[in-house]
């Protein structure tokens, strides 16, 4: 085996793995792929499953990914891993939930933003803060 691959597995929340490896196996959407150095640039989605990184002949590390994107450059493999289980149904469910929460929250208010009311409310808050500051300075004198 000549050359090594730089494998990086990152999720939006943290970096999971970053090391030179000999070979990577990943659960791509169209079937599992094995990647060795000098692979053609490729970009594909991942299914939930295990990513295996062969660091040396007898050292293999396994990571579970719940999906994501696999990007391959000749000497670099990047896995943008998802942290949450995805899928159209699940995503839609989450979207509907967010929408429902919004509707619940806005049940009693108009569809159009009441600029005057908003402004007065912010002014009030700002005035309170100013007053507190003033009182504090007065106390210091």
């Amino acid at each position, binding site marked *: 085996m000549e050359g090594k691959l730089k494998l990086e597995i990152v999720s*939006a929340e943290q970096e999971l793995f970053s090391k030179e490896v000999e070979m990577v196996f990943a659960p791509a959407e169209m079937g599992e792929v094995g990647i060795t150095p000098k692979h053609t640039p490729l970009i594909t989605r991942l299914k939930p499953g295990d990513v295996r990184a062969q660091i040396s002949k007898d050292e293999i590390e396994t990571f579970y990914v719940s999906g994501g994107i696999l990007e391959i450059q000749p000497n670099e493999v990047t896995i943008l891993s998802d942290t949450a289980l995805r899928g159209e149904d699940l995503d839609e469910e989450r979207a509907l939930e*967010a*929408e429902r929460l919004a509707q619940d*929250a806005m049940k009693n208010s108009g569809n159009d933003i009441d600029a005057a009311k908003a402004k007065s409310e*912010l002014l009030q808050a700002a005035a309170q803060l100013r007053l507190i500051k003033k009182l504090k300075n007065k106390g210091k004198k």
Partner: protein
Amino acid sequence: MSSSKEIRTQISSIQNTQKITKAMEMVAASKMKKVQDQMNKARPFAEKITNVMSHLAHAHPEYESEFLTQRDVRKKCYIIISSDRGLCGGLNNNLFKQVLEEISKDKAKGIESTFSLVGNKASSFFQRVGGNVIAQTSHLGDKPTVEQILGVITKTIANYLEKNFDEVYIVYNTFVNTVSQLPNLKKILPIVIEEKISTYDHYWDYLYEPDAEEVLESLFTRYIESLVYRAVVENLACEQASRMVAMKSASDNAMDLIAELKLIYNKNRQAAITQEISEIISGAAAL
């Protein structure tokens, strides 16, 4: 002048408040550290995905997608990221003020606004003032995850793709330092890819599996998600910093108040003693 007993109870109640604000200050300080860590941990993903995107822009300059196409702006959507809890100074109000300014500028140009909200404070603000809110989430806690904000993002992106609005912005506080947080407005859709100077000067392109459109769509979605997630985490760091500062000044104020009240209390006590002595002396003199 109030009686000594009254002043004493007042002092002890202020001392109790001070204990609470002090504790909150320390809790906020330690939480802030943790959130800053979380902020740093999110960086590699953002760098990687930006890299992939700029490779793409290089490989595929003619590629067209709804995610990238500029449209005439008639409607805008703001994803507003606020805190869940209060007692953090003017953090949220400054943010809302910025949003209002933006909206009134838009209104003058005839642009309508839609909102997606993250955090309790934003939803209660818009509850009171009204507005077209399409999605909302709150109670993210001290360690927000991507999953918690996925609903809002998915809903917003879906609406964007259906052309219900032409531009999407996120509004959140940026962490300058512990004492300074600035409200910030950032355009996230359509995506503007910064083309980095690539090391590959010959033309090349990826192989896409199953096909370019699908892969790119999920790539763009994740890019937006990571942007919003980072904004949420940064805003949380701001919240903790702002709370720390607010609680510190509250503790200081309590200390000032206590000092003042103690002075009055001691004066009172002395006056009472003096009075007592003079009564005894004048009594003795009368004998």
